[in-house]
């Protein structure tokens, strides 16, 4: 419980309405995209950097820890309140300070929703490439915290590649600026890079300088349908070998084809083993040769291959992919989503590994994957109300993570570690690497006040 003094002081800082301490209110801030939950001592929503500073100082005086939160869509438990913390919610910091297309930079507050930024940018013929599938809800601050990926990473990279600078409130309440409005403003060490993906454990981001780029002049969307998942993997390898870097190589397996078809009626054949959505972009003149090469590759092994001829057809292809996660609710009420990633060459083995885990643990697993990145989203289906089944699912998820590590991969390609995958970190990293993480955390936050217990224990 927060003392009345602290509550009153918080209300003075951010205004009466922006402090939540009632049981029901707290409950709504206790969840994220995982099955975990927790209860905060309070929730406070600042509007400005100055208010964030005041909050941090106040919390330090009373030795209370802070858990940062955007939209709470993350899949790793990163925003779950733990250790008697106050949640600092950035959803009131939603200003887009500046969009400067000629200088390829935008300046935004952390609570800006990715989609809202994209809409503004699109009006100016620009975009911000990182667009995780949660982009209609997730915030830029959250994307920075988790270093989010999305379907365009094969060509365009992840969030860290598009953050030029940050304004950060440190755990001691002081404000620094990392980087700037270009590639070359880091002060000796690349502080921006270490804060991106640190899940709020090193500092609270209050302003983000993002790199924006012009929209591609042309884009081609293709769909290939396969009898077997292995054939789709072969296409991915062949496209890379042909020297083409598509923006997107999205794969869905048979289970997902059927669940999305129930919902979207996009006309995918229900007996197919896998579909692959392939997209290339660039100058119009460069599209046809690439499409030609890709169609030759696909036609060798795919049972069907088509090139979208209109915007409507592009939409139709993407509808299935976009509704993939939600669609599995028709099979079972809950799903656990994973983001294991393996080297591209091990992708077929990872698919086999998923099937093996499903069989061994007797669970249903559907697969959506960013195949070009070797990034898989096995969706483990279950019913949350069945305690025994939940245990089995946890065991299966652990087996998936270990399988990825055995294939020289990582337990997290784009969702982050948070609480969910913390227990696997010692399997992925050597003691020396874990030691390096702790040295970095200690340099920023020696008292372990920001998002304590996330990613690793100090």
């Amino acid at each position, binding site marked *: 419980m927060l003392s009345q003094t602290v509550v009153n002081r918080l209300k003075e800082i951010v205004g009466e309405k922006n402090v939540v301490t009632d049981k029901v209110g707290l409950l709504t801030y206790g969840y994220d995209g995982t099955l975990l939950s927790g209860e905060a001592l309070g929730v406070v929503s600042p509007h400005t950097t100055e208010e964030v500073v005041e909050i941090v100082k106040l919390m330090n005086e009373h030795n209370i820890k802070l858990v940062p939160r955007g939209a709470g869509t993350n899949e790793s438990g990163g925003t779950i309140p733990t250790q008697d913390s106050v949640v600092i919610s950035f959803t009131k910091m939603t200003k887009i300070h500046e969009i400067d297309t000629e200088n390829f930079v935008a300046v935004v507050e952390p609570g800006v929703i990715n989609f809202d930024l994209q809409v503004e940018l699109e009006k100016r013929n620009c975009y911000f490439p990182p667009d995780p599938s949660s982009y209609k809800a997730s915030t830029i601050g959250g994307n920075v915290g988790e270093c989010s990926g999305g379907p365009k990473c094969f060509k365009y990279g992840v969030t860290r590649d598009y953050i030029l600078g940050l304004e950060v409130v440190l755990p001691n309440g002081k404000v620094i600026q990392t980087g700037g409005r270009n590639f070359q403003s880091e002060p000796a060490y690349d502080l921006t890079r270490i804060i991106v993906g640190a899940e709020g454990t090193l500092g609270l981001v209050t302003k983000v300088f993002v790199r924006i780029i012009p929209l591609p002049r042309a884009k081609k969307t293709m769909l290939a349908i396969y009898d077997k998942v292995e054939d789709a993997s072969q296409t991915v390898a062949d496209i890379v070998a042909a020297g083409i870097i598509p923006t997107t190589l999205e794969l869905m397996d048979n289970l997902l084809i059927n669940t999305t078809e129930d919902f979207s009626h996009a006309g995918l054949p229900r007996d197919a083993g896998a579909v692959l959505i392939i997209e290339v972009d660039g100058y119009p003149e460069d599209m046809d040769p690439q499409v030609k090469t890709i169609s030759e590759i696909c036609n060798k092994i795919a049972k069907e291959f088509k090139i979208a001829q209109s915007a409507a057809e592009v939409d139709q292809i993407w509808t299935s992919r976009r509704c993939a996660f939600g669609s599995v609710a028709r099979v079972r009420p809950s799903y656990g989503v994973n983001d294991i990633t393996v080297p591209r060459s091990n992708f077929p083995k990872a698919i086999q590994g998923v099937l093996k885990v499903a069989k061994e643990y007797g669970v249903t697993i559907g697969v959506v994957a*960013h195949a070009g990145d070797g990034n898989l989203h096995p969706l483990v289906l279950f019913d949350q109300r069945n305690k025994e089944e939940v245990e089995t699912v946890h065991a299966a998820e652990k087996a998936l993570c270990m399988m990825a590590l055995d294939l020289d991969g990582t337990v997290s390609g784009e969702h982050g570690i948070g609480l969910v995958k913390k227990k696997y970190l010692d399997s992925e990293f050597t003691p020396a690497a874990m030691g390096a993480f702790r040295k970095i955390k200690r340099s920023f936050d020696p008292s372990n006040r920001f998002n304590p217990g996330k990613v690793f224990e100090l």
Partner: protein
Amino acid sequence: MSNVNISKLKAIVGDNNVIDSPSEMAKYLKGKGKPAVVVLPGNTSEVSSIVKLANEQNVKIAVGGTVAGTKGLNGGIAMVMSRMNRILEMDHLNLVAHVEPGLLHKEFLLKVGEAGLNFPPEPYEVETSSIGGCFAIGDSDSKSFEYGPTRTFLLGFEMVLPTGEILEIGNKCIKNVSGLDFIHFAVGSQGTFGIFTKLLVKLLPVQEAKRAVIGTFTSIHKANATFNTLIKRNVQPTRMNLLNASLAKNAISGTEGQLVIIDLQGFKESGKNIANEIAAVLTLGGGTDVKIIEDEAEYDQVINGWLKVRAELNGKPEQTLEFLVGPAKMPQALTQLEALTGDLGAYPGVVVEGLLGYVCLALPEGTDKLALAAKVNKLAMSLGGNIKGLLGHKLKAEAYNDAEMWQQTIGLLQELRQQFDPKGILSPGVSLEA
């Protein structure tokens, strides 16, 4: 007096790989410091043993690929990585290579090219730069708009920490957010967090088509104005660079005036049209001798000329001043700059990397660099930029009148360094002050 125990070093790396006669040491060293010894390790475990020995005897170590800097290294160990120069693996399926740090950057580019692949970062110095050095410096270059800065190309590494402990991190996945991002944080740390002993490098498919468009201009402002036209026309080539008259003739001998070099990599079918569009913009903008280069040998000659000039400037950081502005704000920047420097065409050196909004000035002898930097930073800040790097950060904090921010930043940098290197063994020449 030095504490370096030469016989122990010889026991670690073998007699032939320890050099302590000053005349033989010279070719491995740069700068005025006087290290006691040059040592050439052959593998990771030797590097680790040397670092442990240095810790026991409280001796400093500076590391270089072919040449080590000696600043602050009196009585210390200069470690040169040139024996650790193998390509351990070239993996076409995953588009990655595993290399040792002493491999020359130019060698690597050659091997990568032969394998039909592409490693975009420009060599810092054409002849002597190593891959270890490339990531230890971790800069951006004029191709970064298209490919991203150097750090983009590191997926993992093995490193000997300042305590001698060996750290391995990373994998062949192009997406990896597990743990804290020490992989990219180490890029640019200039050997203060540790010594790279292996690097896992990301590659790209080779760019099949390469073209350049060059042109000369009597006025630097007119030359630069063409960049704005291209940005407004939504043309983003691979490089969009400008050398003033003093530097232009070093890049392509016989060049009169300011030289514009525009590089187009990978625009396979579209390249012809884009090159024509660029050539038209340069000609209309007042360029003469505007030329589209498609011949491979001639293309290489132009790019190598560019790299040579760039490397010369990289080699003398104390005599250069680098700043950035918003790319589209460059015309104002150059006009305002001229009020401080006089005619930029005749200045000892001006480089503009137009896509990045970057300028490098080669300063006339006797210039008070810090005084000029303060003025240039003010100018740059009003145009959406600042002086590059740590100095820029300090000047920015001064401009905000925010001494606290500067103190916090410096304090944080020093704490990080101290955490990794409590005894202050590694890279004594690297200062975190500005």
